[in-house]
């Protein structure tokens, strides 16, 4: 592998690793979503530094040029991350649906209670009005 490419790959992987760790530190990224990012940056970093492993991998899979094996691994991780996000979005969709249903039912309950309360207050007001009217007559 061309040393220039190796330097770029190492710099990229280290940069990614640092950004992910910093985001976790700032609580901008939850640990459960950070794990896959960390794993992918560490593996890419490892393959970029340790050329023998990359060459072995390329031979085993049948890739002629070793840098392509690096891209191959990187693309694999990207697909994995995307699937991970689709799963997360599905879960959030389901959670927001459940919340919406719950909120709608609570809101209906509150409205019913308010209506009943207003009716009670009207009755009480009417009653006191009638009572005061009776007093005037007397």
């Amino acid at each position, binding site marked *: 592998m061309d040393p220039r490419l190796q330097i770029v790959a190492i710099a990229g992987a280290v940069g990614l690793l640092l950004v992910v760790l910093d985001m976790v530190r700032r609580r901008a990224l939850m640990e*459960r979503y950070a794990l896959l990012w960390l794993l992918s940056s560490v593996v890419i970093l490892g393959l970029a530094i340790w050329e023998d492993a990359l060459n072995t991998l390329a031979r085993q899979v049948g890739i002629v040029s070793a840098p392509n094996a690096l891209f191959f691994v990187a693309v694999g991780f990207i697909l994995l991350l995307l699937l*991970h996000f689709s799963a997360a979005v599905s879960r959030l*969709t*389901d959670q927001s*649906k*459940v919340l*919406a249903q719950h909120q*709608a*039912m609570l809101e209906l309950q509150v409205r019913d209670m308010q209506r009943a309360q207003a009716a009670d207050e009207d009755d009480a007001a009417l009653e006191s009005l009638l009572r005061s009217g009776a007093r005037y007559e007397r």
Partner: protein
Amino acid sequence: MLASRWRATGATTGYVMPGHAGEPTPSEWKTATSGRGRRFRRRAAPAADPTMPTDIRFNDLGTCLAVVPAYNERDTVGNVVAELRRETPQLDVLVIDDGSTDATAELAEDAGAQVLRMPFNVGIGGAVQAGFKYAAEHGYDYMVQVDGDGQHDPHEISKLFAAAQGSNRVDMICGSRFATETGYIAPISRRTGIHLFAFLLSRLLRQPVTDPTSGFRLYNRRAILLFARDYPHDYPEVEAVLMLHHNRLTMTEVSVRMLPRGGGASSISSGKSFYYMVKVLLALFVGLGRRRAVPEPGEAAPVAAEHGI
């Protein structure tokens, strides 16, 4: 007057699954509770009582809730509610306003319905499931689903109830446009899908299913509890039939007349028909491989913070 209508509509097209016509025997109980993907425990239903009068009325069947999902249906929802209250005053009417941007909720309320307002559009599946949850929470014995677009004739609800009363063991009764000749012709794009689903479900359930996309349905308490726990998302009707079957609940169909839409647009435009078909097919085939549709108490929550990948 009601009674005569009951008697006039005796014929139903479906039948109860073989092996479940009577009370479950102990061995059936075992398979019902331990079989793969069939974990919904059957509450022991009363055996058919031969002394039961044939001209039963709504009230004798228990309390019933009419659920009307509506999304931007201001032209029709008032009429649907008013008609439901006039034709079937025994039913409580609950309109589910699925995040409408028009006056659907207000019009439904003015017509005398309870209105469940979803905070945003959750889709037909989520909206109807809110109805199941409401019915489950308020202890209704039956729930009938009626579309908010005026397609379903409240007169025909009595036919659904007649079928419910005919057999204690039927958990869902579907109003079908195709069970007998009713003069209804769907657009070709939609017809293909409907017939394909009908064919597949008939094979899977080993009983005739002619109109699996119909949303005109009556559910008993068992079905209400099942669907309150889990109901499909996007185009739920077809999948719901399969879910019901997987959980060893039964369904039957009754021929009903449907009216042309009173206004508004269908949730499924013709352009989306193909997408609809593919999505439901995927759901059907994936649903076949699902170990169980609904988690049992004590199992992992269906929607949990942890995840697989």
